[in-house]
């Protein structure tokens, strides 16, 4: 079919497609985006056969973990490669059992694949109606709100928003009314509802189920991280929040180091959870609570996510220690039998590591088995340190006998 697809591609050359979750409007130096093309990454995900075992958000094979859902938290590129690394031997074992050859990747393919995985992990899942229904009562939503006329009348009928398909939109709508809502809840002695994990999506699903009449969908357009960065300053976030000591305020948590949830919607949920505290804090400083359009909120969150993709949080010194501890040095030292990694060009980026893992890893595993070296496993943060160390080039120039 590819020939036909190609012919069609020329036919439809006009219809340039640049759809990604992070609409890269400024793909120039200084612009914020996730390196690589997520859709091309998905192509690689399909073409290389990953999809035969792995799914993303339920699309694909069922024999291996859903890469969008597991592990649960936010993973930057370094953590992605660590997860890959740690599971590689088990995966190869299963592939061998099924007589599948591990695919090989070029660096650009790996870049795209990472962009894809990072993007897809930021997506929210469709909610679970049953769970949402339980949440509705647990969170006392129906005390104030009605759904299609059923429930309390103090707040607006939630049916109004059933066409909103994105949890971020919901949070944004709530956010903008947080003030009045807080007041009303205080009046009724209700605690501020907290949303964790997929709660928001589940709530949305059950609300939609209960208010079936509204047709049409309101979606968010792909977020613009560059715009998000601007908003971060314009809306005054920077006054309280810092991003890894980049000159922001210290009153709020540093958004560059704090653990992120997996998806954008979950992040929005966290914002919501902290709204009263934030308001309180803002209130003391006499600043207005920032108001967002829903596209603005998604831009802002996207900015924070993209910021965390290639976080260089590692420490070269710690990395050197890891290099020794994990046994890497026994082979990859300049005099070792393996490829010397010192001064590895681009070694500071996770992409070449992942590429090398796929292209040479199996061979390496066998060599390690011969020499009874255990396959190293990395805990969170360790890979970042290692990468920082490797890119630092402390060990001098690459040795002459480096193997390809």
């Amino acid at each position, binding site marked *: 079919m590819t020939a036909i697809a190609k*012919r069609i591609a020329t036919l439809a050359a006009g*219809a340039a497609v640049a759809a990604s979750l992070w609409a890269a409007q400024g793909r120039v130096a200084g612009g914020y985006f996730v390196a690589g093309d997520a859709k091309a990454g998905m192509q690689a995900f*399909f073409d290389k056969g990953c999809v035969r075992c792995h799914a*993303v958000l339920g699309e694909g094979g069922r024999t291996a973990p859903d890469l969008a859902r597991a592990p649960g938290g936010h993973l930057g590129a370094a953590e992605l490669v660590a997860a890959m690394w740690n599971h590689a031997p088990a995966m190869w074992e299963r592939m061998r059992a099924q007589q599948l050859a591990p695919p090989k990747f070029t660096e650009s393919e790996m870049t795209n694949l990472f962009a894809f995985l990072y993007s897809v992990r930021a997506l929210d899942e469709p909610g679970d109606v049953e769970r949402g229904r339980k949440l509705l009562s647990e969170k006392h939503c129906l005390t104030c709100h009605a759904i299609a006329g059923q429930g309390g009348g103090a707040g607006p009928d939630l049916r109004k928003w059933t066409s909103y*398909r994105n949890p971020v939109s919901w949070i944004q709508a709530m956010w903008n009314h947080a003030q009045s809502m807080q007041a009303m809840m205080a009046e009724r002695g209700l605690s501020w509802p907290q949303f964790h994990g997929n709660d928001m999506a589940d709530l949305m*699903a059950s609300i939609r189920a209960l208010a079936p009449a509204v*047709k049409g969908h309101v979606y968010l357009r*792909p977020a613009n991280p560059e715009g998000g960065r601007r908003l971060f300053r314009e809306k005054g976030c920077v006054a309280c929040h810092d991003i890894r000591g980049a000159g922001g305020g210290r009153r709020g948590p540093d958004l560059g180091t704090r653990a992120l949830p997996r998806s954008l919607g979950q992040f929005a949920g966290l914002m919501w959870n902290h709204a009263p505290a934030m308001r309180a804090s803002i209130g003391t400083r006499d600043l207005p609570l920032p108001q967002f359009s829903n596209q603005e909120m998604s831009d802002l969150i996207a900015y924070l996510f993209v910021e965390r993709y290639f976080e260089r949080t590692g420490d070269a010194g710690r990395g050197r220690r890891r290099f020794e501890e994990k046994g890497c040095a026994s082979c990859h030292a300049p005099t070792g039998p393996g490829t010397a990694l010192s001064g590895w060009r681009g070694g500071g980026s996770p992409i070449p590591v992942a590429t090398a893992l796929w292209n040479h890893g199996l061979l390496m595993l066998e060599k390690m088995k011969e020499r009874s070296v255990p396959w190293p496993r990395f805990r969170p943060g360790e890979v970042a340190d290692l990468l920082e160390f490797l890119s630092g080039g402390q060990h001098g120039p690459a040795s002459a006998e480096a193997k390809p």
Partner: protein
Amino acid sequence: MSVRINRRDYLRLAAGGVLGTAASGLSLRGVSQFNAALAAEEVQVPGGPENWSPGTCWLCPAGCGLRVRTIGPRAVKIQGNPFHPVNRGGLCPKGLAGLQELYHPDRLRAPLRNVGSRKSPKWREISWEEAVTTLGSRLRRLRASGQTHGLVWIDRHERNFTSRLVRRFLTAYGSPNYLTMPSGLDAIQTAVYLQQGVRDPVAYDLEGAGYLLSFGVDLLEGWGSPVSTMRAFGRWRDSAGGRRTKFVQIEPRFSITAARADEWVALRPGTEAALALGIAYVLLTEGLYDADFVRDHTFGFDDWRDAAGRPHMGFRSLVLGEYRLNDVSELTGVPAETILRLAREFGQNRPAVAIGDRQTSTLPGHPYAAMAVHSLNALAGSINVPGGVLIAAGPPLEDTDAAPSVRTAPPRVDATPEHPFPGHHLHRLPQAILSRQPYPVEAVLLHNVNPVFALPNGDAFRRALLEVPFVASFTTFLDETSVLADVVLPAPTGLEQWQEAGSPPTFPHTVRSLSPPVLPARHRARHPADVVLEVARFLGPPVAGAVPFDSLEAYLRHCVNNLFAAHTGSVFSTGLDETWNRLLERSGWWAPTYSDAEELWEQMKERGGWWVPVSPSGERERAVDTPSGRFEFYSQALERWSREHPDFARSAGLEPGDDHLFLPRQPPLPEAPRGYPLLLLPVEVLPLSGAEGAHLPYLQQIAGPHLFEAWDSWLEIHPETAHKLGIADGDRVWVESRRGRAQVRARCYRGARAGVVHMPLGYGHTSGSRWACRGANPLLLIEPHYDPVAGLPQTSGTYVKVYRS
């Protein structure tokens, strides 16, 4: 007279002759002349610049995407559009044969006016101006006499933009009478309405299904949208998928669909409902049904008491009491072990789907039986879940494109009080016309339809149309219906016009296919919509104001503007884009490739259309709108209606208020009249499905592959039955019912049930084109009777006798 030839003369003559012949034959000139004569016979194909254009298939309602190869001014090949979500590059034989329709020698070449009588027409070519004036002044007169509701428009499809334009025109003009040809899904649609309370089109996520029971549905022979069904079939058996969906075909005849199924279950004709309820019996007794779904989302499963405290029978009691395994086995002729096994497989392989009752692409099944089959879906919990039965979301522009309101019109001419659930009941039109009830029909406009040929009561249609004062037909061929018209207006084929299609039948996604003309229209053909717009202008306000568009193209642009305003969906693209967009849309992001309506329009023209890749599944409640708010095994809608219509119970042969009237049940089986021992079941064959295709040689050639039949109808008869009647394979026989008789070739077929004979539908044209007028139309033998619930014509009870001619 005696001519003496002496020896010398004779020899001279002989020698001269021989030499002369030899000389002329062997001389170089002779040889070259002979060769030149042969070369002149050879067909030279002119070349030219090559181009590929997107197109939309017009040969069935599915509207698959096409890519059309043109060489200079000629279209030379039709292929599938790989971007089109319905067919993804594949195409069925019908679509591929489209070029034979485009270049058909018998196409109408100009508007025609009948200058003879209606019964024996004489045709004169007229200009388009004259045609429009004729049409317009006729409608103007009708309006002047206050009879606007006497106008009836019969359409082919009702789910595309053009049909919306026509409805808008009719509403503005003042007629409620927009009718369409039956789709064959009417029985299922009725069951879905009775049990789920929704009128939106039913759809099936076939690709996602894990187990499929088809109760006589011609899944691979033209049902629904054929290519997407075939694609799903291919996916079921894709070994890379790791799992194979089992597909069980339940029908009396070993059809192509049955042959390709994983299992074929032969049953006594007309007992599909009993078998479905027998399977339900096993599911209930063995606890294999989705108890959570049944508990939380259904109504009428257990016995219940109404508000007045009257006890009512529940589905469980009905099934356990009246459809016991052995009884069902005896009635259907299916071994009890088979039923047991089917039920266990159905209960254990989720998502499991049941489709039925017995459908062809033109003939509906029985609504009660459809309810019985649909109840299995409820037992399996397959209502509106991925891989189950879905309710297709309406197109998003529904609300933004409402027709301008005019004064309220009287009820539709086919909406008779006997039947509660009006869909389109075209077969009732003849009676309405002939009886002039509820009001006289003054004019009928036909849009690419041929009810005289394709409906079971075609002859009544013929008689009725002759009574209508004015009939006009938009058509590509002078078919059986068009010959009854006063004015015949040549319509172009899908390659010569703005071709568009709505969501295909049974396809779960909202789809809008659209493509510009590939070639200029041949033979002075004009798109009916353009003619309607011109007639509207002729009529002046308010009609003209209601459809303020210069051309169909302008209207389509208007529709696309609405599509853009809906802020959802995406332009057709690769499967990869589809997955990506689906991932995004499901989590609330919309990443279109266009930023305004203009770009959307351009991209739709290039790619062939727009669609919503997210399936409407997952929200069960949205698919139910019944009084109980749940799936109803016991149809309260039917119950409420019957209270006002006591005749209903009587027509079903039951006491008013009997609970059986509102629960699924096995309809009574017709009995064979004396002297007519064989049951005739007309069957669908893919090349001629939907009663269309007989005019194309490509399709005629492949009509009956299992028997090497081509170009002619045949009668499938079991070899033993044939032997008893003294009929040999290939004999010409008469098939005679009480309604008429037809001559066909008998073919012994081991896949026919003893005592049952089959004839393919789609044959037996008497007008239209040189290639179509072959074989016999089994519908002329069928004695249709109408079911009591929806009044759908039932074609399964016709008995015939067969004898050698």
